[in-house]
């Protein structure tokens, strides 16, 4: 009985080989880490400077905190989403199609679930790298006041898991690179704008709030913001569970769809 359950689960869970997929990505990344870091760091840094200082002058404070502080937590969350999404969409899709890397991996003992787990672990790692970078910048700018704020890093990693898994679903069904525009327009850009990165979700109309609060980025912001500012964490368990549910569901879907696409 227990043996059978173990076998069944084994089919849907990655084996340790997925670490080798992660190591492959890390090896490739480490060859151009400096350039890559510029890319990861550049955009969030510009947002912080441009909006934090520029817009911050007019906004002053939101919810009793300095706008730069408010924004830094939002950018931490958003950049985990963007980094993971870009890595999975462009990196993952290129590896799957142009470079035939997935096919090469599947001709070894690795299974689709291991390849996907390796991609997810890597996407989350890149989210973490960008999170660490913003965390350091925020500390330099003084916009991460709470001493316990380093706890955002595991949350950033979890966020990376969620958004890589989601993006891999898109990779699995994408006919070409242009297809990603639908995903950006329909999912990531709305989340970037409406899930509390730049201003509180409460300021939106009731109906929009309802939807926005269900989206994964809203849950990420809801955990990260109080952690960076040093406010009490409300509903931590709820937000974490929501993120884990998003991750598990989209991971499973991505694996099933990629099996269909790769084993033909």
């Amino acid at each position, binding site marked *: 009985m227990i043996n059978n359950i173990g076998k069944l689960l084994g089919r849907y869970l990655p084996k340790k*080989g997925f670490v080798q997929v992660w190591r492959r990505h890390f090896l490739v990344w480490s060859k151009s880490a400096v350039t890559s870091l510029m890319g990861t760091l550049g955009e969030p840094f510009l947002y912080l400077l441009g909006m934090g200082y520029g817009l911050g002058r007019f906004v002053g404070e939101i919810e009793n905190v300095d706008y730069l502080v408010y924004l830094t937590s939002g950018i931490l969350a958003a950049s985990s989403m963007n980094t993971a999404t870009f890595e999975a969409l462009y990196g993952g899709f290129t590896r799957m199609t142009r470079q*035939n890397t997935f*096919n090469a991996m599947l001709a070894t003992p*690795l299974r689709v679930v291991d390849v996907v787990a390796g991609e997810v672990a890597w996407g989350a790692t890149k989210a973490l790298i960008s999170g660490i970078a913003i965390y350091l910048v925020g500390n330099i700018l003084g916009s991460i006041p709470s001493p316990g704020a380093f706890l955002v890093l595991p949350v950033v990693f979890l966020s990376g898991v969620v958004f890589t898994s989601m993006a891999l679903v898109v990779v699995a069904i994408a006919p070409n690179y242009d297809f990603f525009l639908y995903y950006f327009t329909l999912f990531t850009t709305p989340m970037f704008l409406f899930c509390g990165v730049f201003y509180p979700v409460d300021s939106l109309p009731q109906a929009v709030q309802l939807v926005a609060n269900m989206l994964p980025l809203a849950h990420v912001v809801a955990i990260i913001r109080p952690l960076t500012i040093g406010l009490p964490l409300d509903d931590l368990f709820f937000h974490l569970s929501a993120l884990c549910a998003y991750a598990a569901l989209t991971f499973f879907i991505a694996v099933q769809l990629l099996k269909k696409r790769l084993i033909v």
Partner: protein
Amino acid sequence: MTAVVLAEGLKKEYPGHKAVDGIDFEIRQGECFGILGPNGAGKSTTLRMVIGLTDLDGGSLELFGQPMYPEHPTLAKKIGVVPQEDNLDPDLSVGENLLVYGRYFGLADREVKAKMDELLLFAQLEDRKDAMVRELSGGMMRRLMIARSLVASPDLIVLDEPTTGLDPQARHLIWQRLRALREKGVTLLLTTHYMEEAAQLCDRLLILNRGQILDQGSPTALISRHVEPEVVEVRGDGELEILQESSHLPGRVERVGDTTFFYSNDAHVILDFFRDRHDLTCLLRPANLEDVFLKLTGRELKD
């Protein structure tokens, strides 16, 4: 002894047509087994089933006595794969390609590193260890793919058109390497369009057309079964009338392009007949696999 590969009634259907349509074959330990067939015959599809990159739509498939299906890590561990299209990792160097691929098989880095020199030597890439893959020539890439397939010491190596697009030198080097592997007792399964390659390498052959087996057997058996032992090729200006003039000659006559082929048990009768026709070029040669292939699959272009 159990067969390395045992396929019975193997089927694969894609929307609208049957890529592989019920084929049986058995590959024995230590032999080199070749699949010949025109473009679109179903060669790659058959190989993809064997290596678990596609599921069967019918029939049964066993490797080393165990049922084979996609995502079968324990069987995948015993198979080395050289696919038709290049899938080396372009982001990695030659040496890293071997190292990383070995890791996918669960090998420790020191195990791969211990084998690295031997593999590079095998591929004649000793001085290219740090080169990036995109700097390699087509022949080097193919050799690297073969070396890569050996990283986990497989019992079966599956190669899809290992020498297509390579120059004669590169091809001969690969043939020599594959023979060396067979000598070591590794079982080989390969596809090819080159009859010479099939004749040189394969102990047994399967000729595939439109997903079905036309025949299988050793190269010599196939030749003696399907074509007369000698062939006279006749080419030249007055060649159009040859067919009419020669209708009484013994044997079988075929025309391809500007050449007429006379298949016969006694080619001298034919050579004598054309002795005085100095406007024609006559060539006598033994029948080969190409004659069998053309006879069985027909002479028109396949796709």
